[in-house]
């Protein structure tokens, strides 16, 4: 029961994780079927999946990766970040800046040197922080570094000063709000209110073409699986158990000699980078990034996804993100004004009756079913105290 060694890395990660195995299998199947049905079957065919649907699903997967990032710090280390939308948005902006550079002279003003919004603002030259975004590799590095460095600096200060609990939540919320205000300003050089949009190409491939969309969808699936496995690797290691110790008994972890602040910082930075990757994949699929992504409400919604799906399982976060966002798509279409009430109600219901979310509900149902099957057999599993 205690031997975790001498097995392949994947076996170790997924050995006792049937939820994760199913999730990855499902994702791989989707990665094949959805682009296939989109590209091979003609419109009007029964098997055709529209580009709209594929892109929508891709968007959900980006949210799911974001939810995994939040579950990693909240579910396993007890860090309730109400500002994770900021890391998602920063990753998105890094990708958006690359996509803006890809437009070249095809903008409204036909200026090859400057993006349209800068021409509009009468700027003469590209600000220094836009340098390098012509390169895809550099932009991808920034997708990781921009959120990572912010998380590092923020986390270093907060965790070293031992800011925990609700105070930490409040300052993360303040962080994303401050960024929202900053990115709204035109003179920040990120497109102000309108953000970055009108993208044309990615790596030279048109963003409007179905095949590019299909590749982005597949990339989202792979990023989700990758993010899941990285998170799983962390939580199944001894480091993961230290995180749980910090969550459950922080001072015990300290008196055992663990530098709680470093552990928190590590997982916070990893999580912010996962969020950044999610944001970077989100932007080319939805076609825009604007300061609205920094809105505090967005970060709170992520928490609801994770809570509804069931925290502390990783795959629960994926389930929650997809279900809540699907509901959002349906309800904001049908009765938009009710959506926020529904979302709030969902959170209250989950908190009151389903502390373990959908995953917990499923376990409960299965338990009941199993219990009914062997009602005759006595309950002697040996785990009652």
């Amino acid at each position, binding site marked *: 029961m205690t031997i975790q060694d001498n097995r392949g890395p994947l076996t170790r990660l997924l050995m006792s994780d049937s939820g994760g195995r199913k999730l990855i299998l499902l994702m791989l199947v989707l990665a094949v079927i959805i682009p296939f049905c989109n590209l091979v079957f003609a419109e009007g065919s029964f098997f055709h999946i529209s580009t709209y649907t594929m892109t929508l699903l891709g968007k959900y997967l980006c949210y799911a990766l974001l939810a995994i990032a939040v579950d990693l710090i909240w579910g396993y280390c007890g860090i309730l970040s109400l500002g994770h939308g900021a890391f998602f948005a920063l990753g998105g902006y890094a990708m958006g800046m690359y996509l803006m550079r890809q437009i070249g002279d095809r903008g409204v003003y036909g200026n090859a040197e400057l993006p349209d919004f800068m021409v509009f603002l009468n700027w003469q030259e590209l600000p220094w922080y836009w340098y390098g975004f012509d390169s895809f590799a550099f932009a991808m590095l920034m997708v990781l570094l921009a959120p990572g460095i912010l998380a590092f600096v923020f986390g270093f200060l907060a965790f070293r000063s031992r800011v925990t609990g609700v105070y930490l939540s409040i300052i993360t919320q303040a962080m994303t709000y401050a960024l929202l205000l900053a990115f709204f300003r035109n003179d920040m050089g990120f497109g102000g209110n309108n953000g970055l949009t009108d993208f044309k190409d990615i790596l030279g491939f048109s963003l409007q073409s179905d095949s590019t969309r299909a590749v982005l969808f597949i990339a989202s699936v792979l990023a989700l699986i990758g993010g899941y496995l990285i998170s799983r690797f962390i939580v199944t*290691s*001894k480091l993961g*158990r230290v995180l*749980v110790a910090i969550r*459950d008994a922080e*001072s015990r972890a300290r*008196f055992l*000699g663990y530098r709680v602040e470093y552990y928190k910082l590590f997982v916070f930075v990893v999580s912010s980078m996962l969020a950044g990757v999610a944001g970077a994949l989100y932007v080319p699929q939805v076609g825009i990034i604007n300061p609205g992504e920094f809105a505090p409400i967005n970060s709170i919604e992520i928490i609801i996804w994770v809570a509804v799906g069931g925290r502390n399982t990783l795959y629960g976060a994926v389930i929650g993100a997809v279900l809540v966002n699907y509901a959002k798509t349906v309800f904001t279409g049908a009765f938009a004004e009710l959506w926020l009430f529904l979302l709030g109600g969902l959170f209250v219901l989950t908190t009151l009756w389903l502390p373990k979310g959908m995953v917990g509900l499923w376990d409960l149902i299965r338990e009941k079913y199993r219990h009914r099957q062997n009602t005759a057999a006595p309950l002697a599993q040996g785990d009652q*105290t």
Partner: protein
Amino acid sequence: MTAVPKHIDNPAVLYMNGVSVSFDGFKALNSLSMVIEPGEMRAIIGPNGAGKTTMMDVITGKTRPDSGDIIFTDAAKNTFDLTKFDEAAVANLGVGRKFQKPSVIESLTVFENLEMSLQGGRGIWQALIHKLSADQSSKLDEILSMIDLQDKRGWMAGSLSHGQKQWLEIGMLLGQEPELLLIDEPAAGMTDEETMKTAELFKRLAKKHSLMVVEHDMDFIAALDCKVTVLHEGHVLAEGSLDSVKANPQVIEVYLGR
């Protein structure tokens, strides 16, 4: 009355001199001085508010004293001024602490709790790639049998009884292999039988480690059969064998008599 021989050239494992701490004008520790010898077991008693927990806080780096020295000597005879270190650093120097309220990680198994306590490998990267060695594995088995939880190694720590949690936490201290163990009310919530077993365990430990035990239970202290220090209003009121301390009129006045 300690059974451990004193060597002149053996520096004290813990040397506290004139340690004072005040919180908003209230002197929690008032020029506290105390010496713990290597391999010694020491019982600390005193009424509520005498400064027992604050004393443990300053030793383990949780609270910085306003003045005074706290010198710790490790197995290799290196000396450290503990007032310069934080909790994690003090723990890694070789000072283990058990809290009054059992503090185990409830959602990990007994085995995982102990595994986490094992000496070494406190860095992030080490924790990420950690694999249990054969040595560590046998060390864990040894601790499990010492604290009598072999058959519960796979249990969630949260499902243990109160007394078992206390034992698990003591086991976690053993995993750290500290020079000095600070133990706050170990017998709280234990049955009489468990209390006596705990006293036996501590007496065995005192051969290899130095122990400082804060306790209210006089039967338990009698069973420990060691030197007793009485704290009162942040300083040492009396020190000596349990019998001599019990006979001290000042001690009777502030503590035992009431």
